[in-house]
């Protein structure tokens, strides 16, 4: 079972991401966070394989700012930056700790991407 932490302050999008991962029984959502600060605590506690991270969050830190600390808290986690800000993609190139970038309107790609990052597709 691959565990997922969702870091998102919009409850509708949070619910959407949870529902998408519930479609594949090999994934389990281990926690929801509205801020990067909550996400760090969750990442330390649950050691997830996937972190779906928005940039604009409820706390002081933005998602992108929190990436190095998240990676330190959960070194095995693959981080997917899932945002509505297309501009951020250019900045992600210089952030090796971010494993993938996905625009929020491309929700259909989220599950295949998570499967690919956790090497599930090769097992099929």
């Amino acid at each position, binding site marked *: 079972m691959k565990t997922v932490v969702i870091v998102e302050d*919009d409850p509708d999008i949070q619910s959407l991401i949870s*529902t998408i991962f519930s479609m594949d029984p090999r994934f389990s959502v281990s926690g929801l966070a509205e801020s990067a600060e909550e996400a760090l605590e969750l990442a330390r506690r649950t050691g997830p394989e996937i972190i779906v991270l928005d940039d604009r969050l*409820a*706390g002081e830190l933005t998602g992108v700012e929190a990436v190095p600390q998240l990676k330190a808290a959960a070194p095995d986690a693959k981080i997917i930056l899932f945002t*509505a800000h*297309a501009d951020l993609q250019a900045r992600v190139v210089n952030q090796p700790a971010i494993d993938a970038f996905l625009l*929020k309107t491309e929700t259909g790609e989220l599950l295949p991407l998570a499967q690919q990052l956790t090497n599930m597709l090769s097992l099929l």
Partner: protein
Amino acid sequence: MTSIEMAPQRGAVATGVSDGADGAGAAEAADYARAILNMLDDVGEEQERQDQSQRAILNILEDLDTQKSHLESTQKALINMLDDLEVERRKVDRTNLELREVNEAMRSFIATAAHDLRSPLASMVGFSSLLAKNWDTLSEEKRLKFVTTIDRQSHKLTWLVNDLLTLSSIEGGVLNTRPERIAVAGAISQCLAASGLDAAEITVSCPPDLVILADSVHLGRMIDNYLQNAFKYGEPPVRVEARRLGDMVEILVADHGPGVPPDFEAKLFGKFARADSPSTRQKKGTGLGLSIVRGLAEANGGTAQYQPNLPAGACFSVSLPAETGPLPSDSGSPPTRAALSSADPQSRPPDERPYR
């Protein structure tokens, strides 16, 4: 000087006695006299030549002086031209900088608009896709939840699109403004009724005879925006007050929240202006409301302002042209909030759209 050898050529003095010792002496004296006269002539000519040369040199010096003056004038003119060019260059630099800032503001506006449009769209696309692919396996409860979310987000998207269209109309100078005489007290009551806010937390103070000249839909949009902001970013109790100030009527909405951070006040009425703090980040909004209020106020011949509500809170106001004379008759039923969002001429009925 060669005047001695040339002396015999002069005839005038040489015609005298030439024989005997006295005659020889007189001839010699005459020769000397001729020679001296010749020398004097030569000196006179030389003096003349020198005078001429001196005059020529003086003329040349005068010419040089004139030319120097011309050169100095030319130099001054060139320096002035260089100064003018420098001023022009600075103007061009300033314009370039302003254009770059406008470009950057436009780029930032488009990026933010795209982000804000994409957010509700993401929920709509995501949930409708889940419904389409998993209709049979989803429970009735889940389906209803998804559809409700799509509905809510589509309304959010509609508000945002309306705001963007309104702003575009304001900035493009094609906003349809239909000024009419409005009784301020009645307009405030209608806005409160349509706002969906808790009336118990709002106090209203407005002289019953205040009348303004404004577009009623625009007035509703401005008051509603201030009221919603007072509850979203501020704290109750909220005070709505209207008063006559010279030729204008000021309508203000004051709350008792944290107020606007001083360093953000200048940007308050700008597009997508939201003070970036954890508390405001959590509030949902387009960030276009106040820039629309300012545009609507100006389109109606007024202004929109902010000042702190001392000791705590924010106080937003709009000043609109006052009207005298009897109160206008009742303008009918209160507008709905959806109607208030349609300050954009494209959203109004076709017969109300401006001719273009």
